[in-house]
């Protein structure tokens, strides 16, 4: 082994240039992998944290009395990983009245929330605007306080079912942000079922509630699924224990791990309190969605990261392969001088270990640097994670280097010494060319793509105990075979192309210009040029496909965000405020706002189905937000807006509704609309004018779109509650100005930039920005490295040949032309491959992941800037290497080089 060590170290010392090249390429390759590990781990942890923290209320366990709720809450509070456990109650009221300085005011049905002191410590279902929760006093929801015109210190009267009343002093005003969860029907078997929030909410301390209203109303014995979905339908008191888990116990892993952990904690509590409590698990539901998103994210990351990582490692292999002929001669010489195969293998191991150790450490450093520069915010790099990444990088570098050395050295070990000392011969047609493997791969790729396309590229997240992603394995064969087929085809065509050029210039017998020798030489350097062409071409193609996919993804994420939010900016106001304060006009006057349109979002029943209804102004909506034709069926956006404008009672309904109720255009549709004055539903006639499948701010399931003025007249809800605004400047900057302009009206302003970051319900929320930034930066770096490596290897491989040319009297320019011509051939071929294969791959990826895009893209988005940078990177690598090559050739020790065998 000591001989192997000496041999290995001696070889590394004797070839500092080659060692440095190999080390640098390995470092870049493992840096990409290290950065990917850091980023993907961070992304999954971020998804877990976002999902965990987005749940205002983790567990709700229905119980039958105040006493049980208090006792159980106390016991559960002592369980490990429980951050808070509180006894809580909800109950309906039939009305609420107020006598103040401005006279008597009243509001209809609503719900009471009873919470203990300190409830808001870890549970964030509401927040105080003014005042607080004091013994014997009530806190009113902001909307209810506005309706009643009640202030702190006023007295309000709650009317309960059965005729009883209770008087309370107003202690504060709050915004209830999670009413849909707080007042949902609690059925542990059915799971979470967020319900339509009550119109009016009053909050009381648990203790006073238990002794007043709790006694006046019956207690719900079991869960009444569906009852709470209808405002005012609940008839009794729902006692429950609300539990918030410690986020620290769940975070730090993937959403799937957090989902499992949350289930374990819940089960543990339920097991210890068998028969006493079972929970509706809001947290697991959210984590399950996040786990599904994470699986998609992992699939996306794999699709994007794996080709890059493989190409990076391939480049390291190329670095080792580049000097294979010289290595063969050296190994043959060592064998001739008595070195055994074992010591040569040991020598390869020593070389790989030394280079891998340095390259791995350097690569890890580059990966830390890359993520710190390219990824916004921290990636949660701890000492442990840092050590893991360094270890992985070093292991990969050593392994990659050894495999490459072994791959290139195996032939040398098996062939005869004499064969090893001979130069390269005329290579015959490779087997794959005889078998037409390239065309076969392309045909198979097309066939598989067509077959999977015909089944709709089904990708399913199985929502079983732990989410798993079902993707057809065959789906991945299509792009893989396309990569292989297109590359082999280009290699085949390159040979033919050269043959054609050489024939064109008169073949071997005729002509004497430099071009003839360049072409003749290049045409016989097929293996070396093919290697360069394959790696540079694939790298550029990978860069192009990844760039196009990522940009299309970003484009669709923007479209999705606008669909979710509604417009560049949305301003949501309490009922009546928009019309009373002229908010639409005020927002339109804000600098940077180019158009506005008022919207009223409410609910109505179609038969037994409660659906969202959007009251819009068809005349102004198109200028305030983007309405795509793909949002509608049967007619374009412009036509349907015109139809709505012509028919005040016109309504657009979903395809589902059309099918379920056998509706057609022009049919009468009777909806039960909530009358905000009476608090009851009443029938309002509409006429179907079209079908809508997507709409700004609308949910993904069924909804309807009607005229704002007609809806406002029917529901007496005080007119629009949202204003859509289009901006001509940065939405976040304009959003700030809109907030300032509407200050004091209780308006919530959101902008699309926030939304793009915050949206958590859709797959397009997987943030590809980080990974695409990393990939783009590394693609440019790798393309430059690949060209630099190719040119460097040409010089390294052919130094003896170039020294002979110099001895014959060739100038540096003549010799350099041999290097430049090969670089040009590789670059030209690589660009052809990148354009063709890159575009095809992007088309294929977008088609395969069509479920990721909602709505599907109308066309691919091309990142011209990045593509230009990618090309520039490759050219820069080639130019830099050519300049270095020229310097190296000028300094080539002719006498010494010519003595080399």
């Amino acid at each position: 082994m000591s001989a192997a060590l000496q041999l290995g170290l001696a070889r590394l010392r004797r070839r500092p240039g080659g060692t440095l090249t190999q080390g640098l390429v390995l470092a870049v390759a493992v840096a990409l992998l290290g950065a990917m590990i850091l980023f993907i781990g961070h992304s999954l942890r971020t998804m877990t944290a976002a999902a965990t923290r987005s749940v205002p209320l983790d567990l709700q366990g229905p119980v039958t009395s105040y006493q049980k709720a208090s006792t159980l809450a106390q016991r559960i509070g002592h369980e490990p990983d429980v951050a808070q456990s509180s006894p809580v109650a909800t109950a309906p009221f039939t009305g609420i009245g107020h006598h103040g300085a401005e006279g008597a005011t009243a509001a209809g049905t609503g719900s009471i929330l009873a919470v203990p002191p300190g409830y808001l410590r870890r549970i964030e279902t509401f927040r105080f605007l003014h005042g607080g929760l004091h013994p014997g006093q009530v806190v009113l929801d902001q909307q209810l306080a506005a309706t009643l015109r009640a202030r702190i210190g006023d007295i309000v009267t709650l009317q309960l079912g059965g005729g009883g009343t209770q008087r309370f002093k107003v202690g504060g005003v709050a915004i209830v942000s999670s009413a849909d969860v707080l007042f949902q029907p609690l059925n542990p078997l059915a799971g979470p079922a967020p319900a339509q929030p009550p119109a009016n909410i009053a909050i009381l301390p648990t203790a006073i509630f238990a002794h007043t209203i709790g006694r006046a109303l019956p207690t719900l014995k079991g869960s009444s699924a569906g009852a709470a979905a209808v405002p005012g339908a609940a008839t009794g008191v729902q006692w429950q224990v609300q539990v918030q888990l410690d986020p620290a116990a769940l975070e730090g892993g993937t959403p799937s791990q957090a989902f499992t952990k949350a289930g374990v904690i819940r089960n543990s509590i339920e097991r210890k309190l068998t028969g006493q409590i079972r929970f509706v698990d809001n947290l697991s539901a959210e984590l399950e969605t996040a786990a599904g998103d994470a699986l998609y994210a992992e699939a996306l990351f794999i699709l994007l990261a794996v080709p890059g990582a493989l190409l990076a490692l391939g480049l390291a292999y190329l670095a080792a392969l580049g000097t294979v002929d010289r290595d063969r001669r050296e190994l043959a010489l060592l064998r001739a001088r008595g070195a055994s195969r074992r010591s040569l293998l040991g020598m390869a191991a020593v070389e790989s270990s030394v280079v891998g150790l340095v390259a791995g450490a350097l690569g890890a450093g580059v990966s830390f640097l890359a993520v710190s520069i390219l990824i916004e915010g921290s990636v949660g790099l701890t000492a442990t994670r840092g050590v893991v990444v360094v270890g992985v990088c070093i292991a990969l570098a050593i392994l990659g280097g050894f495999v490459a050395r072994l791959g290139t050295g195996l032939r040398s070990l098996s062939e005869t010494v004499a064969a090893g000392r001979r130069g390269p011969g005329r290579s015959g047609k490779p087997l794959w060319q005889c078998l037409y493997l390239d065309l076969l791969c392309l045909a198979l790729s097309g066939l598989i793509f067509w077959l999977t396309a015909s089944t709709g590229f089904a990708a399913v997240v199985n929502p079983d105990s732990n989410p798993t992603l079902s993707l057809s394995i065959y789906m991945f064969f299509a792009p893989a075979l396309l990569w292989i087929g297109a590359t082999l085809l280009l290699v085949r065509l390159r040979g033919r192309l050269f043959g054609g050029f050489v024939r064109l210039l008169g073949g071997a017998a005729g002509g004497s210009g430099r071009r003839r020798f360049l072409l003749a030489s290049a045409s016989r350097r097929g293996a070396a040029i093919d290697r360069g062409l394959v790696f540079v071409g694939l790298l550029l193609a990978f860069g192009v496909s990844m760039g196009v996919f990522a940009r299309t993804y970003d484009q669709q994420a923007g479209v999705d965000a606008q669909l979710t939010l509604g417009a560049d900016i949305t301003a949501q106001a309490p009922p009546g405020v928009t019309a009373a304060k002229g908010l639409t006009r005020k927002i339109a006057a804000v600098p940077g706002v180019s158009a506005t349109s008022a919207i009223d979002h409410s609910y109505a029943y179609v038969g037994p189905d409660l659906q969202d209804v959007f009251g819009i102004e068809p005349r102004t909506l198109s200028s305030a937000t983007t309405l795509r034709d793909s949002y509608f069926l049967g007619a374009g956006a412009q036509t349907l807006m015109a139809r709505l404008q012509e028919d005040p009672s016109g309504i657009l309904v979903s395809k589902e509704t059309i099918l379920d109720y056998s509706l057609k255009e022009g049919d009468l549709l009777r909806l039960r609309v909530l009358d905000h004055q009476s608090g009851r539903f009443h029938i309002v006639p509409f006429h179907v004018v079209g079908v809508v499948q997507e709409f700004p701010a609308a949910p993904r399931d069924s909804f309807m779109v009607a005229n704002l003025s007609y809806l406002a007249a029917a529901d007496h809800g005080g007119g629009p509650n949202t204003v859509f605004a289009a901006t001509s400047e940065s939405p976040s900057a304009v959003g700030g100005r809109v907030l300032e302009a509407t200050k004091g009206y209780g308006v919530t302003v959101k902008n699309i930039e926030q939304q793009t970051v915050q949206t958590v319900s859709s797959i397009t929320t997987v943030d590809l920005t980080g990974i695409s930034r990393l990939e783009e930066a590394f693609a440019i770096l790798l393309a430059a490295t690949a060209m630099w490596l190719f040119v460097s290897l040409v010089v390294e491989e052919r130094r003896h040949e170039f020294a002979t040319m110099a001895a014959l009297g060739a100038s540096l320019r003549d010799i350099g032309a041999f290097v430049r011509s090969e670089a040009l051939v590789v670059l030209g071929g690589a660009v052809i491959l990148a354009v063709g294969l890159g575009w095809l791959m992007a088309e294929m990826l977008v088609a395969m992941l069509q479920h990721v895009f909602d709505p599907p893209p109308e066309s691919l988005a091309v990142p011209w800037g990045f593509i230009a940078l990618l090309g520039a990177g490759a050219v820069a690598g080639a130019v830099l290497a050519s300049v270095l090559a020229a310097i190296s050739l000028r300094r080539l020790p002719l006498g010494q080089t010519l003595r080399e065998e």
Partner: protein
Amino acid sequence: MTTTLETAALSACRGVAVRYGTREAQVIALEEVDLAIEAGETLALRGPSGSGKTTLLHLLGGLVLPSEGEVIWKGRSLALLDVAARGKARAAGIAYVFQGSNLLPNLTALENVAFAAWLASKAGPRPQMEPEELLALVGLEGKADALPTELSGGEAQRVAIARSLAQLPELLLCDEPTGHLDSDTAGRVLDLLWALRECFGFALVLATHDPGVAARCERLVELADGRVTGGSR
């Protein structure tokens, strides 16, 4: 700037020394070598391995520059010529035949000869004989399209000789041209070299440690440890 020296010799070395490395690690390849080569003469450089024969050949062609002294080619010091000018001097006047033939591995036999002819035509007058004729002259007209790996040792050396002829040499520097060949083939290659010298009239400097080969030459220079130790000057 070039200096014209008053000398009738085609090529000459004056007090030449070649040293590699520095201080303790210094290796002396040649020391105090004086040598003049007349046009058309044949000269053998004889000595054991490491005696400096190859270094001296490299010096004469400007592939290596002396650490001391000067090498003169047709009255001009090679050290005062730039890389390109030295290259031109080789392309049209100083040709090499190496021990291992050193054919360009990615060009056929004909292309190897044609490449040298092209370089020579760039540096001076166009060679009178076409590459095909030169190949025929060395008896390899049937191997024009063969790659170097497809040639035997003797054939490769003959292609190397044809290639050197394409450079219209006034000085042909041969470094152990028969070192890798069996005695029959070696004899045929030497016969060819002498026949061509008769025909083309170039001066021939031949490094060898074979006394038989050296005996064919008009003059002999003995080298040992980088110094001229004997022979006729």
